[in-house]
C-alpha cells in the first residue's frame, strides 16, 4: 500500500474506533439520577481513548520505519555492490548511490543501465517493495491491535478524559519543542560547517582580515589555501547600509506612529494605516527590484548632476530602499508601544492642561522609551539580516569604505553569492558562507534577545 493509502486507512480506522469506543462506554454505563451515568468521563472521551490506542503506536512505527527505510535500504544495497565500487571516495560513492536510486525510480533509465547498476537497482526495488509490504502489514496490525487494547480500557472507572488530555498535552509539547529543534538545527548546521571552515581559514583572519575575495579559492586543486576571507569589509558594508536604513526608518517610523496614534482623525487613520501595512507587506524582492532599477539609477543621475561620482550600486540606494522597507516595521512596533501607554496617563496630562505635544514628549515617549529602544534594536536586526534588497541593489565588490556613494557588499550578499550556482561542499568558499551565516546569526541573536527582553519588561509594566 502506498503511504497515502496507509494514512487513509488509518483515518478510516480512527473514525471507526471512535465510534465503537463511544458506543461501548455507553453500553457499559449504569444510569444514575437526572440523566447522568456513572461514567467517569463523557462517552466521547472513551472514543478518543480508543482512537489514541489505535493510531498513535501505528503512526509512530510508520514514521520510524519511513525515516529509517531509505538509509538502511541504501546501505544494504551498496554493500551488495562489487568491492571496486565501494572502495571509491565518499563523493563518488554518493554519486553512484544517487544514480542507482534514480534508476530504481525511473524505468527508462533502468532499461539502459549498466548491468551492475541494473542489478543493484532491481535489488533495491525488490527490497523497497518488501519493506513497503512489511510496513503496511505491521502498521495495520498494530492499529487493529490498538483498537482491541483500547476497547479493553473502556470501563466506567477509566479516567478516559485525563488520559486523553495527557496524550494531547504530550503532542502539544512536541510541537512547541520544534522551536528549540529549529534553533538547534540552525546552530548545528552553521556551527558544523563553520568549524570546517575555520579548519581551513583561521578565525582571526576571518574576523579581522580586511580583504575579501573568496573567488580565488575556486581555482582547482587549491582548496581553501589562498583565498582571502577577511570579513571586515563585509561587516562595515553591512553596518553602513543598515545605518543609512535606520537613519531613514527610525525618525519617519516613529513620527508616523506618533501622528497616527495621537493626532490623526479616524479618517486619516483608516487610510494611512492600511497604506503602511501594504508597505510592510511588500516582499523584499520587490524592494530589491525597485532599488536596483529605479532608485540606484536615480541617485546616480542625481549625483552626477551635482558633480558627484556615484557608483551604480551605491550603498546609499540600497540603504534608502531598505529604510523605506523598515519604516512600517518601525512604525507598527512604535504604534504598539505607544498604544500600550494607558489612556489614563494621557487623560492625566491633558487634565493638567498639557498640550498634545507636551503630553507626547513628556509623558508618552518617556513611558514608551524602553519599548521604542526595543523596536529600534529589532529594526537594526532586521536591517542587518535583510538579504534581497542588498543582493539586488548592492555590489559584490568588498570595498572597505564608509562612503555611502560607493558600492559596498554585505554579509548576506556574500552568503547568497557563495551558495548559489555550482557548489562544492568542501570548498572554503562554500563553507565561508556558513561562517558568515554564523556571524550574522550571532549578531542578530544578541540584538533580538536584548530587544525582546527590553520589550517584554516594558509590556509587563503596563499589563
Amino acid at each position, binding site marked *: 500500500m502506498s503511504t497515502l493509502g496507509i494514512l487513509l486507512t488509518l483515518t478510516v480506522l480512527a473514525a471507526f474506533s471512535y465510534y465503537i469506543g463511544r458506543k461501548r462506554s455507553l453500553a457499559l454505563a449504569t444510569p444514575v439520577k437526572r440523566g447522568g451515568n456513572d461514567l467517569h468521563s463523557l462517552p466521547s472521551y472513551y472514543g478518543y481513548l480508543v482512537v489514541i490506542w489505535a493510531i498513535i503506536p501505528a503512526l509512530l512505527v510508520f514514521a520510524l520505519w519511513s525515516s529509517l527505510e531509505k538509509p538502511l535500504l541504501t546501505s544494504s544495497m551498496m554493500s551488495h555492490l562489487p568491492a571496486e565500487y565501494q572502495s571509491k571516495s565518499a563523493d563518488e560513492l554518493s554519486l553512484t548511490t544517487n544514480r542507482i536510486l534514480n534508476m530504481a525510480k525511473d524505468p527508462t533509465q533502468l532499461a539502459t543501465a549498466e548491468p551492475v547498476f541494473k542489478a543493484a537497482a532491481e535489488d533495491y526495488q525488490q527490497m523497497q517493495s518488501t519493506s513497503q509490504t512489511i510496513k503496511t502489514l505491521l502498521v495495520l496490525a498494530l492499529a487493529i491491535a490498538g483498537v482491541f487494547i483500547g476497547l479493553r480500557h473502556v470501563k466506567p472507572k477509566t479516567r478516559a478524559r485525563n488520559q486523553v488530555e495527557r496524550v494531547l498535552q504530550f503532542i502539544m509539547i512536541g510541537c512547541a519543542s520544534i522551536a528549540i529543534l529549529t534553533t538547534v538545527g540552525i546552530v548545528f548546521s552553521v556551527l558544523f560547517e563553520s568549524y570546517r571552515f575555520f579548519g581551513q581559514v583561521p578565525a582571526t583572519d576571518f574576523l579581522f582580515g580586511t580583504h575579501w575575495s573568496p573567488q580565488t579559492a575556486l581555482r582547482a586543486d587549491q582548496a581553501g589555501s589562498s583565498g582571502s576571507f577577511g570579513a571586515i569589509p563585509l561587516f562595515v558594508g553591512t553596518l553602513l547600509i543598515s545605518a543609512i536604513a535606520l537613519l531613514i526608518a527610525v525618525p519617519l517610523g516613529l513620527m508616523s506612529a506618533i501622528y497616527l496614534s495621537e493626532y490623526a*482623525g*479616524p479618517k486619516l487613520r483608516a487610510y494611512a494605516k492600511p497604506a503602511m501595512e501594504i508597505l510592510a507587506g511588500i516582499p523584499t524582492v520587490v524592494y530589491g527590484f525597485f532599488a536596483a532599477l529605479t532608485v540606484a539609477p536615480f541617485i546616480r543621475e542625481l549625483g552626477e548632476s551635482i558633480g558627484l561620482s556615484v557608483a551604480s550600486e551605491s550603498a546609499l540606494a540600497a540603504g534608502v530602499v531598505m529604510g523605506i522597507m523598515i519604516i512600517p516595521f518601525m512604525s507598527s512596533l512604535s504604534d504598539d508601544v505607544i498604544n500600550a501607554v*494607558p489612556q*489614563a*496617563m494621557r*487623560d*492625566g*496630562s*491633558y*487634565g*493638567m*492642561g*498639557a*498640550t498634545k505635544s*507636551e503630553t507626547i514628549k*513628556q*509623558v508618552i515617549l*518617556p*513611558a514608551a522609551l524602553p519599548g521604542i529602544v526595543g523596536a529600534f534594536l529589532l529594526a537594526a536586526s532586521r536591517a542587518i539580516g535583510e538579504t534581497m534588497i542588498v543582493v539586488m541593489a548592492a555590489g559584490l565588490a568588498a570595498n572597505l569604505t564608509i562612503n555611502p556613494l560607493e558600492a559596498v557588499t554585505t554579509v548576506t550578499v556574500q552568503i547568497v553569492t557563495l551558495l548559489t550556482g555550482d557548489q562544492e561542499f568542501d570548498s572554503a568558499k562554500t563553507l565561508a558562507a556558513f561562517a558568515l551565516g554564523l556571524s550574522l546569526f550571532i549578531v542578530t541573536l544578541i540584538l533580538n534577545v536584548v530587544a525582546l527582553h527590553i520589550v517584554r519588561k516594558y509590556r509587563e*509594566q503596563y499589563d
Partner: protein
Amino acid sequence: MTEATIDMTTTALPKTNTVTSGGREEFAHTISGTIGKPYLDGKDAKFFCRGVNVFYAGEKQAIFDVNMDIGKNEVIAMIGPSGCGKSTFLRCLNRMNDTIPGCRVTGDLKLDGEDIHDREQDPVLLRARVGMVFQKPNPFPKSIYDNVAYGPRLHGLAANRSELDEIVESSLRKAGLFNEVKDRLQAPGTGLSGGQQQRLCIARTIAVSPEVILMDEPTSALDPIATATIEELIDELRASFTICIVTHSMQQAARISQRTAYFHLGYLVELNDTKTVFTNPQHQLTENYITGRFG
C-alpha cells in the same frame, strides 16, 4: 417647587404607595426642573451652569438641561445610577469632553463668569484652573518629584529650582503624602500603593494651584482603607479648593459632600444639602435611589 412638593407629599405617604411600586421610570415624567437648592445666591458661585445639554456622536443626548451653581470651597457630590450622565457632566467642567470625538456641549457654562465653551477660552488654561483626578490612579512613569513638578514646569509656574522644590513639597504636604515619601522623592511614582498613587495624582493636580478640582470616582479602584484616607484628604482640601466629585457610592457622597446632586437619565433631579438628600430627599426618584428601591 410647588408641584414638586405636592409630589413629595403624596408619594412619601405610605397610603399612596401603590404609586411607588411601579419602578423608577414612572417618575421620569416628574423631572421638571431640579428640586432642592441648585442655585446659590450667585456671589459665591464658582461655576454657573444653565441649560447645559450634552450630545454624543449621532445626536444621542447624554445630559438634558442641567442648571446648577457650584460654590466656592464646597464639596459637591454627583450621584446616580450608571449612565445617568454624572461623569459626562463633570467632564464638561474642564472640557475633557473635547477629547471625545463627536461630543457636543450646549448651554451656559461659566467659571467665574467666563464662558467655558467659548472659542476664546483656552482649554489648556482652563484645565490649569480646573484640575482633574481620575478613576484609576494614573501617575506618570516618572519620579514622585517629577510627577508633582510636571504641572508647574509645564505652565512655567516656578522661576527656579528652589521655588519648584517648594511647590512640590507643599503640594505633597497638602495631599498628606509628604511624610510617606519624603525620603524617596526620586523613586518612581508607579511604585507607590494604589491609595498613595491617587494621593500623588491629587498632589500633582494641586501643584498647579487650580481653583477647582474635579474627581471622577477617585476611590472606585481603591480598597476601603485607601478610600477612607482619600475621603479624609478631600475633606481637608475643601478649605482651599472647590471640589466636584462623581461617585458610584452614595455612602461616599453622604460622607464627604456638603451638597449632593442626583442625576437620573441625564437629568439633574435633585440638588440639595447632603444632609437633606440622605435624611429627607425631596424627590421620589432620589428617595428611591437613596433607599435602595430601584424598581
